[in-house]
């Protein structure tokens, strides 16, 4: 069984938002609904300034609070590490939305919380999901953490990486390259 992970090198992102819309169309989302987003921050004083752009989406946490708070197991963790939602079991209580420390979830028009799916239809074939594939700067690399030869493991070995909000104990499966 594979165990999926995602490395994001946000230093390469130029904020084109292609990842957002590629995902929207692939997943048939309305214009207002997104599964991934950019966090943007400018720092410094003119002319010594810097801009950070960091793509974010569901971290598919190993210790996912959204899974443990779900009253009907509508949100559940798959064996391959993907945190999935069974919309037919969801009661729409939004507990997962309050529980997620990464703002990863949004409510859809049917009043069901949705989020980035890590598109297993791609990962299972060893391919990159649309958000990663469309990115001109190759900011995201998905892969199997259990496969020692995977590209993601190579990147993890060559770079120092961090996860977001480690203090929350969620053990995210997204690793950000520290630059």
């Amino acid at each position, binding site marked *: 069984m594979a165990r999926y992970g995602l490395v994001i090198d946000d230093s390469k992102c130029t904020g084109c938002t292609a990842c957002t819309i590629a995902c929207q169309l692939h997943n048939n989302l309305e214009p207002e609904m997104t599964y991934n987003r950019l966090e943007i921050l400018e720092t410094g004083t003119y002319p010594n300034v810097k801009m950070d752009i960091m793509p974010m989406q569901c971290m598919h946490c190993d210790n996912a609070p959204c899974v443990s708070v779900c009253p009907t197991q509508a949100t559940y963790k798959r064996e391959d590490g993907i945190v999935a939602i069974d919309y037919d079991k969801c009661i729409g209580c939004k507990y997962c939305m*309050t529980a997620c*420390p990464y703002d990863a979830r949004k409510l859809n028009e049917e009043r069901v919380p949705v989020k980035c799916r890590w598109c297993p239809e791609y990962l299972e074939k060893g391919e990159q999901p649309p958000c990663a594939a469309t990115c001109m700067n190759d900011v995201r690399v998905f892969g199997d953490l259990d496969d020692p030869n995977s590209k993601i493991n190579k990147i993890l070995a060559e770079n120092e990486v961090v996860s977001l909000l480690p203090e929350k104990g969620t053990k995210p499966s997204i690793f950000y390259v520290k630059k």
Partner: protein
Amino acid sequence: MFNRKTGLIIAGILIVFGLVGALNILIHGEHAMGTNNKVPWGAMIAGYVFFVGASAGLSIVSSLGHVFKIERFEVIGKRALVGGIATLLMGFVVIALELGKPFNMIYILFSPGISSAIFWMGALYGTLLVLLLAEFYFVIKGKHAIASTIGIFVVIADVAAHSNLGAVFGNSVARSFWNGPFIPIYLIVLAILLGLGVLAVMFYIIDKTNATKDSLVYRNEHIVSIIGKLMALFIVISFFFMFWKLFTSTYGAAPGQYEAAMALLAGPLSFNFWVFDVLLMMVIPFILLMTKNGFQPQRVFLAGILTIIGNLFVRIDLVFAGEIVEFTFLPGQESQYLHAFVSWSEWGVLLGAIGGSILIYLLAEKYFNLDEEHEHHHGESKANKPVEA
């Protein structure tokens, strides 16, 4: 001035508000609510906590009569029980509108998420409703022994359910203002205060309209005055809780908590906080109660109304305070306060639920005998004097 007809009219008007609000929510879903993706919970959750809190408060306070055999409180027993059922049912209505897919609740049975506080909430409140209805059935049938036994379980279930409801918030690692044991305990305190407020209002009105006036007076002291004294006590306790929560949150400057506390004290929630949570729920009622003639029924009635309103707001504010500080993910990013509010549809539903509670109560009053049966024992010696505030 207070008669059945007025009551029904008021209930009717409120219910119309409720129906319009509910319809709007059913049609437009989340768009009709003041919440958003970053502030997912709002007035409906707070309203639910308010109604089940009122129910818990009524049960706990009235159990003082039934369970602990505090005789002077027996007089309020059946009415409090009906009130408890009515508000609980209305709490369910509110939460059902809050839920995107209430019918999927069936999966609470099929695939229970036992690590979820909301799963336990469902289980406990379900049980509670059954217990309350059973108790009511036996009370009406005059089977006081069984009723009292069930009553014990009601109180246990109520405390369990309501503190578990607090844990729904307290469990949240994401929202540091909610995180911890504060909310579970505080909700119980608030529930009792709210229950007292409701009882004060109820019995003041009954006193004005009912012939059974005499039974409301015990050793020259009106039952409403006794409630008033308890209210004063619980105002002090509430204040104590709120003070330390905010003190520790601001003093420690813990990330997330500090900003949330500041949102209440000086930020976007500060108007609500100072006007409703502090003045209306605590300061003014306390002054009303503690000044000369403070425990006169009218005063207590007034204090009760204010504290009820304040109780609704304090829950809204507690819910919002946990969510209103925007998360930040980049080092150096300053957090902002998010925008969230109570929409007119949500107000409608809350008012409607109040109307619904009144309606259920009035119907119960019509179809059942809610007066205390006097053949019951009069063991004055057993009555403990309530703690004076």
